[in-house]
C-alpha cells in the first residue's frame, strides 16, 4: 500500500513539474522593439514616420557559436509611416514575420520638429498600452530622430544599449537628469508643473547629450545647454551636475576646475511688495581638480581657498541667473517646480489668487550659492 502511494505521489510530482506550455512563445519568436523613433514624414506632413530597432538574437556575439562580426548587423532598423503611432505600428506589423513586442522598449526618440508641434497625441497610445513601462526614456533628438537609431557605436553591439548606458551612467553620476516617461506623464498632468526631457544629437558613430529640451503644454519651447542644465539640476533636484570650469578674472590663460560632490538646496518664499519671491540657497561642497595658473599668484593656501570660493560663488550665481532668465523669458515654462512648491505651501495666500500659468514669467527668483571647497586633490601647492 505504502509503495503504491509512493509511486502515485512520484508520478503526480512528475506530472506537475514536467509540464510544457502548448502555446509558449519563445524569445526568438518575438520582435521586441528596443527603441522607437518618431519623425515627421518628409513626403506627407500629416503622417508620422516611425523607425524601430529590433535586435537579431542570432547575430549578437556570445549567443550562438560564431556571431558578432559586423556591428550593425546585430539589429534591424525598419521604418514605416502612419497617420497615428498605432497606425504606424500596425503597418510595421504587416512587414514583420514575428509579432511585435513592446515590453522591452527602453528609448523613445522624438525629433525636435515633432516635439515643437506637440507630443501629446503621440503619447496617448503609450499611456494605454499595458506593456509600456513608465521607466522608459523619451529623448528629444536634434534633427532626425531616426539618426539616433542608426548610429554605429562600436563599443556596444546594439545602439540602444549605448544610449541607455549613456543616460544610465549620467544619471548615476548626477550629470544627466533621469527623465522617464512616467515623469513626463506626472508633470504634464499636474497643473503646477511643466516637464523637460533629455536632448541629444546623434552623428554617425555616437551620441552627444546636449542638455535638456523644455516643454510647455506638451510643446517643446526651448532648450538648455549642459552647463545650464547642471545648474538647474543643482537647484531643482540637488544633483551635483558636472565640473565647473571657470576662467579666472584678470588672468588670460588661467582656468580653475571645480568638482561638486554634495549639493544641498533650500527653496524658500519670502513676501515682497505684491506677492512672493523665491529664494534658492544652494550649498555646494567639492574639490578643486585642476588649476591652470597662467600667471595668477596667491599669497597663501588660505588666500587661494578664500578667493576661489568667492569666485566660484560669483560664477555659479551668474550661471543660475542666465539659466533662470532663459527659462522664464524664452521658454516661459516652470521646470523649476516652483509652482508645485507654491501650491503645496502657499496655497491659500498665493495660489488661489494668482494664475501661475501667466505669473511664472515675472515671478522674482533669487539664487544664492555657498561654495565650500574641501580638498585640492593630491597636489598640495596651490
Amino acid at each position: 500500500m505504502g509503495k503504491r502511494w509512493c509511486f502515485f505521489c512520484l508520478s503526480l510530482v512528475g506530472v506537475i513539474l514536467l509540464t510544457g506550455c502548448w502555446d509558449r512563445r519563445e524569445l526568438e519568436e518575438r520582435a521586441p522593439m528596443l527603441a522607437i523613433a518618431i519623425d515627421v514624414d518628409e513626403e506627407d506632413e500629416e503622417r508620422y514616420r516611425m523607425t524601430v530597432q529590433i535586435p537579431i538574437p542570432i547575430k549578437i556575439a556570445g549567443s550562438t557559436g560564431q556571431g558578432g562580426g559586423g556591428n550593425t548587423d546585430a539589429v534591424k532598423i525598419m521604418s514605416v509611416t502612419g497617420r497615428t503611432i498605432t497606425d504606424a505600428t500596425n503597418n510595421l506589423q504587416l512587414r514583420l514575420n514575428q509579432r511585435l513586442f513592446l515590453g522591452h522598449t527602453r528609448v523613445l526618440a522624438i525629433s525636435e520638429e515633432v516635439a515643437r508641434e506637440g507630443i501629446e497625441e503621440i503619447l496617448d497610445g503609450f499611456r494605454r498600452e499595458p506593456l509600456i513601462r513608465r521607466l522608459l526614456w523619451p529623448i528629444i533628438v536634434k534633427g532626425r530622430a531616426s539618426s539616433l537609431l542608426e548610429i554605429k557605436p562600436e563599443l556596444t553591439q546594439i545602439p540602444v544599449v549605448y544610449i541607455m548606458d549613456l543616460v544610465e551612467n549620467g544619471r548615476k553620476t548626477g550629470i544627466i537628469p533621469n527623465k522617464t516617461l512616467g515623469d513626463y506623464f506626472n508633470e504634464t498632468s499636474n497643473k503646477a508643473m511643466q516637464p523637460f526631457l533629455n536632448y541629444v544629437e546623434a552623428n554617425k558613430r555616437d551620441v552627444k547629450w546636449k542638455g535638456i529640451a523644455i516643454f510647455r503644454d506638451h510643446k517643446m519651447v526651448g532648450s538648455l545647454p549642459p552647463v545650464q542644465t547642471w545648474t538647474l539640476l543643482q537647484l531643482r533636484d540637488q544633483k551635483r551636475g558636472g565640473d565647473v570650469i571657470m576662467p579666472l578674472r584678470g588672468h588670460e590663460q588661467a582656468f580653475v576646475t571645480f568638482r561638486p560632490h554634495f549639493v544641498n538646496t533650500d527653496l524658500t518664499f519670502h513676501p515682497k511688495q505684491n506677492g512672493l519671491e523665491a529664494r534658492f540657497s544652494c550649498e555646494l561642497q567639492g574639490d578643486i581638480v585642476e588649476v591652470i595658473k597662467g600667471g595668477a599668484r596667491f599669497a597663501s593656501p588660505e588666500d587661494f581657498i578664500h578667493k576661489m570660493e568667492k569666485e566660484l560663488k560669483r560664477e555659479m550665481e551668474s550661471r543660475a541667473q542666465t539659466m533662470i532668465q532663459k527659462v522664464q523669458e524664452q521658454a516661459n515654462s516652470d521646470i523649476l517646480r516652483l509652482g508645485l512648491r507654491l501650491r503645496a505651501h502657499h496655497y491659500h495666500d498665493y495660489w488661489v489668487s494668482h494664475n501661475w500659468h501667466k505669473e511664472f514669467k515675472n515671478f522674482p527668483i533669487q539664487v544664492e550659492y555657498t561654495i565650500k571647497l574641501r580638498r585640492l586633490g593630491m597636489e598640495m601647492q596651490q
Partner: protein
Amino acid sequence: MKRQEADSSRYSFTSWQQICLITSTLIGVGVLTLPRTATSRLMEAGWMSPLIGSLGAYFSLWMIAKLSRRFPGLTFVEYSPLIWAPKGSPRLGKWISFPWIFAYLSFLYVATGMVSRIFGEVVVTSVLLDTPLEVIIITMFLLAFFLSLHEVDVVARVNEILFPLIIVPVLFIAIASFQKADWNYLFPLIRVSGKSVMEGAYEAIYSFSGFEIMLIFFAFTKRNDGKEKAGFFGILITMVVYTLIVVAGIAVFGFEELQRLTWPTLELVKSTEVPGLILERLESAFLAVWVAAVFTTVANSYYAVIYGLRQWFKKGLRFQRVVSGLLFIPLFIITLIPQNVVEIFQISSYMGMANLILNLGVPSVYWIVLALRGRRWESKEGKADG
C-alpha cells in the same frame, strides 16, 4: 436547530484568525483602484478618505460584534428570528427577518460577482491579454467552490495562512515606492470643504465592504468578549495598508495623474524599481500574489452566503456543497452584466452606496428593536448577554 448549535460550538476561531478573516476579506480588488477613487474628491488629501471610511466601517462592525456577543454561538441567520419574535413563535420571527437576511446575502452574493469581474478585468488588461475574461472568472469560482466544500474551520485556517501573503506585498510596494516620492504632492493639506471630505470618504467605502461576513463568522469564536477587539484590529490593519497605498500613490504620481490611471496601484508597482532585486517586472509577481487577496475576498463572501443559506434551511454540509455548485451559475451571469470598464466602476460605486446603507442601517435597526423589546428580554433571558 439543535444540530446547528452543536455544529457551531465545535469550531472556535482564535482572535488572530478573526483578524485575518476580516483583513483579508476587506483587502481585495479595492486596493488596485483606491488611490484614484480616494483622490477624486479630496485631491491631495486623499489619504484621509480611508481614515474616515474606516471609522464608519468600524462603527458598523462594532454593532455587529455587539449583536453577536448578545447571542453567543449563533449566526445572524439564527439569532435574527429571536430578535424579531418571542421565543414561542419562531415561524413569525423567521418571516420578519427574511427581508433583512435576504438583503444581506444577496448583497454579498452580488459583491462576490463584482469582485471576480474586476479581478478578471485587471488580469485581462494587464497580464493575460489573450485570455478570455470568462476563463479567469470561472477559475476564481472554482477556487471558491473548493473552499465551500469544507467546514468553517477550514476557512479560518486558509485565511490565516494567506494573510501574510496579502499584507506583505502591498506594504512592500507602498514602502518601496517611497523612494520615488515627492512629498510636495501631498500638500496643501486642507483645500476642500467639509462636504467634499465626506464625499471623498464615501468613495473609499466600497474598499471597506466585506466585513459583514462577520455576521456569520463571529458565531464561531473561542471567547465571547474578544470580538470588538478583533474587529478593531482587523479594520486597523486594513486602514494602515490602505492609507499607505494612497499616500504612496499621491506622493509618486500626484493626484491629477492618479485620476487618469485605471489601475493606479498596478502602475505604482510598474514604476517601482527595487534596487538589488532580480525581478525587473514586479507587476507580474505582484498580480500573482494578489490573486490570494482576491481569492480570500471572493471565497469568504461566497462562503458566508452559502453558509447563511445552509442555516436558513437548516441543512447540513451536503446541502452546502450542492448549493455552492449550483449558485455559481447565476453568479456567473451577474458577473458578465456590466458591458465595459466604465460600467463596472459605476456599479461598484452603487455597491458602495448599498454597502453603506446595509452595514450601517441593518445593525442599527436590530439594535433599536432589541432596545424596544429590551426590558422584556432582559427579564426572560438575563444570562444571554455575555
